Each structure stands twice: as structure tokens, then as C-alpha cells.
């Protein structure tokens, strides 16, 4: 993966349950979202974030994109800390999946617009095109994301 060792990642703040729970290092729930296990991991994650994050931020704004990245990243790290306590995890993919989950929510709540013929003629069409953009990029993204969030 062309990257640092597991010990280095732990010292940098990777998720490792015994340190979080017993040593009280709660910042380890937040720091994994900006850490990566190596160059390949980093570039694949950043490519995915570039496509999905761009679509979501253009569509829904900076504040929404930030919420949709940070809360899922922390929540996913907590779940991982509970159920896989023996693994060391880093990676931004929890947040990237949060953005994907938001795309699904977008499609669900605007379902009635998705197949409407009048949409493209109107102002609202701009948003829908973004939605389509984010959807059309997804197959590419999944190849990227599938290799992300490695436990070391």
C-alpha cells in the first residue's frame, strides 16, 4: 500500500478500541477520517471524494456536505470500534459513504421529480442534473471505494 506501519498509524491517531476506551483517547473517533494507510489508499479515497463530494457540495451547499461527511465518518468509526475492536482502522470512506447515503436520501425524498418530464425545462432541472451526475459517477467511485478503509 506504500505507506506507514501500523505502529505509526496508531501514534498518528488511528482507531484502536483499547486506547479509545481504556486510555480515554476519544479524539481517535475523529482523527481516522483524515488518515490513510498509504498512497494508493489515499489517492483512491480522494478520487472518490472528489467526484461524490463535488456533486453533493454543488447540489446542497458547503454546510450540508460537511454535516454529511463528518457525522457518518464519526458514527461509522464508533460502530467499527464496537464490533471490530481488535482492528486498527483509518480512512475517509465512512464519510464518503455518508455522502453516498445522502445521495440515496436525495433520490428517495425527491422520487416524484426523478421521472418527471417537465423537470428539465425548469430551474429545478439544474439540481436534477447534479443528481444525475452524482449517480452516473457512482460505478466509477465504487471501484475506488472498494479498496478503501483498510484495517491495517
Amino acid at each position, binding site marked *: 500500500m506504500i505507506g506507514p506501519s501500523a505502529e505509526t498509524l496508531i501514534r498518528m491517531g488511528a482507531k484502536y*478500541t*483499547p486506547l*479509545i*476506551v*481504556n486510555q480515554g483517547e476519544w479524539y481517535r473517533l475523529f482523527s481516522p477520517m483524515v488518515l490513510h494507510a498509504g498512497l494508493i489508499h489515499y489517492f483512491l479515497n480522494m478520487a472518490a471524494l472528489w467526484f461524490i463530494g463535488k456533486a453533493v457540495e454543488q447540489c*446542497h451547499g458547503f*454546510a*450540508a456536505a460537511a*454535516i*454529511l461527511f463528518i*457525522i*457518518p*465518518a*464519526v*458514527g*461509522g468509526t*464508533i*460502530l*467499527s*470500534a*464496537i*464490533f*471490530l*475492536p*481488535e*482492528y486498527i*482502522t483509518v*480512512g475517509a*470512506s*465512512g*464519510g*464518503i*459513504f*455518508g*455522502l*453516498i*447515503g*445522502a*445521495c*440515496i*436520501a*436525495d*433520490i*428517495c*425524498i*425527491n422520487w*416524484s*421529480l426523478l421521472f*418527471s418530464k417537465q423537470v428539465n425545462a425548469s430551474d*429545478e432541472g439544474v*439540481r436534477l442534473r447534479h443528481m444525475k451526475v452524482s*449517480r452516473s459517477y*457512482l460505478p466509477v467511485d*465504487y471501484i475506488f*471505494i*472498494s*479498496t478503501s*478503509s*483498510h*484495517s491495517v
Partner: protein
Amino acid sequence: MLFDIVVNCLVGLTPFVDNFTHLGGMVYGFLCGLSTIERLSTDFFGMATTLWGRVRNVLIRFSGLIISVVLILITTAVLVNNDDGKSPCPNCRYLSCVPFPPWAGEDDKWWYCDDCSMITADAILDSSGYYSLSMTCPDGAIEQIDLSDQLVTDRQWIQKQLPTFCRKYCDKVFAT
């Protein structure tokens, strides 16, 4: 898109990919998305919005945020109480890693999810070959394996067979 999600969940079942972060992130993203993404009015297209429809929309929007905050509080509480370093649900690990393929024999799967790949053992040597193995299981237990009926002399063969022995003889194949 559903196809992509399914493919990605399957990839997540391999070892080294943490499916809990992925799926958890997606669920939280969906819940927060319900609240942060604004619903476009259908009035614009000439469809009437009923009172019930508006109440339902407000309910959905607030429930997304409330559920995700409550979920984070609950999972944090579980994490705080989980100070023995063990998962409260040991079999939940199969949500993140499943040995594959299921139809292959126990010895030639493509990947495994246990901690048997890095165990060690002491071989007790006799003049005619290795007679018995003293194997340290992933959880620290020590298993004695009798090899006297096979007359093994090849040290590398034993090294290669160690994970198989581990899966066969150890009670616990996980370190925690």
C-alpha cells in the same frame, strides 16, 4: 446504483475492508440526508400538497436528525461500557468478513476471517521425524497435535499446514 451498493457490500466481506465503517457511514448519511437535503416542492408541477403530506414531510425531516443523534449517543454509550476489549456480538464480525467461497473445502477457500494465519508451534522432534506439535492457538491456548501416524519429516510442510491445524483443533480461532 443498487447494483453498485450490493457489489461494494460483497467486496466489503473480504478481510481488510471494514464493512462497519462503510455501512454505518451509509446509514448515517441517509438519515442526515433526510434532514439536510431540502425537499423540492411538487406544487410547481401542479400537484396539490395535502396537509397530511406536509406533516409527513416535516416528520421525516426531523426524524432523520433525531434518529442519527440518538444512534450516535447509544453507540457511544455501548462503546464506553465495552472496556474489556471484546465485541458485544462476536458473530457480527461476519458482517465485515465471510470466508469465501462457501462451496470450497475447509482447506482451499480464497480467504479466511480468523487469526490462524500467524500462529506458531513447537515441533517435538524424534529421530525418525516430527512426532507431535505443540501449537499456540490465537487465543493463547496450547493444543497438542499427534503426528505419529503420518511420519512427517518436512519442516516446511508443517509450517504450511499450521493454519489448517489451527482451524481444525483450536476451540477459538480469533485472538479476541
